[in-house]
């Protein structure tokens, strides 16, 4: 493989405490090395440009049965955004739910190289991986939904943590999953019976277990298995006024399980869980309360779920929430996957500037990321495509970096929302170092991806180069320049190969699929007969067929962990 030398860029590598130093980076065989020499070294002149590790997205619905159902639901979404094929890329469609190939190309164009699909019903793992295989360039992984899985609920009800851990370990291997995902824990099972849970102490019908016990149980399991990522939680009551209390309760309920400073829980798309007020009329932001709690504690990480005013498609595994959204908006919807121990819903949705609620939601996401002091605790996402398509990340970056950019939007939003927003009182502006943390280093650290998110020797050579000169350009004033730079990376280097140049894909490569391989321990083998028996009894799929074989992944990249079970 060719050797690369990236010269003279302003390097932002927060994990190695490099903050805009002008330096050279050497790449050999897909890794960062001390230096390269000799003939055949390709030199990239990055002078006057920003060099960062490739972007890491911790939460973006890019593949799976529900995403595909969303594609089917929205021909009008494809119609308005068409990508024509080129010599190296395939054609594709889709604005808020792009087709798989387009997803890969568009991420690469923004300098992103690792993306996590956050919701995979275990029964739909095969489908999810087939789509991930067709998502080029980026590395990816998927989190199986376990918060409403019958096995998990039954083991946790009996307080059989070790057995549950064995089951989770088996599921990770069987579905080639990466992290434990909980969506409205307990609520989805209740939705199967047309109900929901009210708070984290409301028992799940027919199971006699509360969301609190599920969250705590899976958190313990996660620690026992030494999973690279924490539990990834979409809170109960998401999208309802007053739910910031539930978000706080959820973080509090695992407080005692934390050891040292290591996080034990990730609250995802926190914007949707930071609503205050008793109904939509008294609706306001609960960002301050959540930020205060997160600033005082170190066991939780968050991601934003930033709203951008656009026409998008909401899709979560939270069926009851999506049903409410369908009723509020009057838009068409799909209820999906109820038979697979989760219950996805899909509703097209338009966020409007002039809507009070939508404008407050826009404000909440930014308030959270500006009020939480430590950027290592909150990461940039739009919960693609729920709050906005991932292609709006550059816009979000410009809002984080520039008060002027925020004010410009503030002028156009709903007047009541403008009065109530906290944003005018916040003058914090992210530096490029902080942007590098929330878009790459932070998520990589939270995901336990030691090869990603930094540019130290030995790291994967996933590099993004943006054409903006921090010495010449006033980043907080020239936010449009920043946005354009982040929209079209000058170069994206994936695994040591230049895949994007001047915002155009010049080479399409296959990305890896990460999955957690929990090293076989006796207890996994012990539970196999039980699982086989239960599969025969309850499942429409046989135990053997349920498991996704390694050769099913285009590029399998197991992350080995040794469990204590």
């Amino acid at each position, binding site marked *: 493989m060719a050797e690369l030398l990236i010269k003279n860029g302003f390097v932002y590598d927060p994990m190695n405490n490099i903050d805009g130093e002008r330096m050279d980076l050497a790449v050999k065989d897909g890794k960062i090395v001390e230096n390269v020499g000799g003939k055949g070294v390709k030199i990239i002149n990055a002078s006057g440009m920003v060099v960062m590790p490739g972007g890491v997205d911790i939460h973006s619905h890019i593949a799976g049965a529900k995403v595909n159902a969303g594609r089917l*639901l*929205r*021909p*009008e*979404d494809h*119609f308005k955004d068409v990508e*024509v*094929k080129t010599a190296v890329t395939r*054609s594709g469609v889709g604005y808020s739910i792009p087709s798989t190939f387009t997803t890969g190309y568009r991420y690469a164009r923004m300098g992103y190289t690792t993306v996590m699909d956050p919701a995979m019903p275990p029964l739909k793992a095969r489908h999810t991986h087939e789509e991930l295989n067709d998502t080029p360039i980026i590395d990816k992984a998927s989190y199986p939904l376990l918060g409403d899985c019958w096995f998990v609920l039954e083991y946790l009800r009996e307080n059989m943590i070790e057995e549950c851990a064995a089951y989770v370990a088996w599921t990770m291997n069987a579905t080639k999953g990466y992290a434990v995902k909980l969506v409205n824990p307990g609520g989805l099972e209740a939705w199967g019976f047309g109900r929901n849970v009210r708070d984290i102490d409301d028992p799940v019908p027919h199971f006699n277990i509360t969301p609190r016990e599920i969250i705590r149980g899976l958190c313990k399991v996660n620690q026992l298995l030494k999973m690279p990522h924490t539990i990834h939680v979409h809170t109960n009551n998401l999208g309802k006024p007053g739910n910031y209390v539930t978000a706080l309760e959820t973080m509090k309920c695992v407080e005692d399980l934390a050891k040292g400073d290591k996080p034990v829980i990730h609250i995802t798309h926190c914007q949707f869980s930071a609503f205050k007020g008793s109904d939509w009329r008294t609706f306001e932001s609960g960002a301050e309360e959540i930020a205060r709690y997160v600033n005082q504690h170190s066991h939780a990480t968050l991601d934003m779920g930033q709203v951008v005013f656009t026409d998008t498609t909401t899709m979560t595994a939270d069926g009851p929430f999506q049903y409410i959204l369908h009723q509020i908006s009057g838009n068409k919807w799909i209820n999906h996957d109820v038979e697979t121990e989760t219950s996805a819903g899909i509703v097209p949705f338009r966020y409007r500037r002039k809507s009070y609620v939508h404008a407050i939601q826009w404000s909440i996401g930014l308030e959270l990321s500006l009020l939480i002091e430590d950027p290592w605790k909150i990461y940039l996402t739009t919960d693609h495509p729920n709050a906005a398509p991932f292609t709006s990340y550059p816009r979000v970056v410009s809002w984080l970096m520039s008060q002027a950019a925020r004010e410009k939007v503030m002028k156009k939003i709903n007047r009541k929302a403008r009065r109530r927003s906290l944003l005018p009182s916040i003058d914090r502006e992210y530096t490029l170092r902080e942007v590098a943390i929330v878009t790459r280093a932070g998520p990589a650290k939270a995901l336990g991806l030691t090869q990603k998110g930094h540019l130290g020797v030995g790291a994967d050579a996933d590099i993004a180069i943006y054409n903006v000169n921090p010495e010449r350009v006033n980043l907080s004033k020239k936010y449009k320049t920043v946005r354009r730079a982040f929209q079209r990376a000058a170069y994206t280097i994936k695994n040591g190969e230049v895949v994007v140049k001047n915002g155009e894909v010049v080479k399409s490569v296959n990305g890896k699929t990460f999955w957690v391989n929990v090293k076989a321990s006796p207890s996994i083998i012990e539970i196999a007969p039980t699982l086989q028996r239960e599969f025969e009894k309850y499942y429409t799929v046989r135990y053997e067929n349920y498991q996704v074989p390694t050769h099913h992944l285009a590029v399998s990249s197991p992350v080995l962990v040794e469990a204590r079970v």
Partner: protein
Amino acid sequence: MVVTLRPKRSFWVPVDAECLTPDIFAGKSSREITALKLREGNRERALGELFEVEGEGGATPKEVSIQVFGDVRKVRRIGARMSAGEIVVHGDIGMHLGEEMTGGRIMVAGSADSWAGSMMKKGTIEIKGDAGDYVGAAYRGSTAGMSGGTIIIHGNAGNEVGCFMRRGLIKVYGNVGQFAGMHMRNGVILVRGNSEGRAGAEMTGGRIVICGSIPSILPTFTIDSVRPRVKVDEEEISGPFYMFVGDLAEGGDGRLYVSQTRNPHLGFYEKYL
């Protein structure tokens, strides 16, 4: 200024001619127009490769008149998003004619394929021959149908005329297929000929006038009255007409006018008056 276009050969695969509008032609010389890009199937072509171009665009779109001759039945999206000026097609034309147009005028001497005037906002389309399905309709999956302007069809139209229509006027002098005015929110559809039925399914507002026959009225419509005449766009149309209200399945308040004399089989409704 008049720009004349003649195809150099016949087309086998669809030609996506989104660039064929007065807005894009305006201010361009004949050479520049020849160089415009369009797609034939999955190949990119210059306009000049496919068409013989004569004349040049005026300074503003309003001054541009595009005259299209020859067989252009495979050419799609002519006049898409046009805001002013004129397009005259001296023959038949392909799909998506005047899609999302916001002004100006399109004349077709022959027939138009499906999706004529879909999602149009303003302006006029006149088709001397027949039109295909989805005249003035919303794109599939979308609820944003025609929101203004006028479409006049002298021949027949296909199914789902004015699907999700929000405002504007569609006049059909011939017959229409099934589901005329489906999901209609507002606006007027006038059909001088017959309807194949299911008119106004799921409509919540607006008016549909059918001067010819219709096999039956959907059961989710209720009869309101018999009207001697209906006024459409300053034009008095003498009836008498049965006036139905619906679609009640959607809580709708749309008006469906159906000729009394041409539909004796609907006479049983009169006992509910």
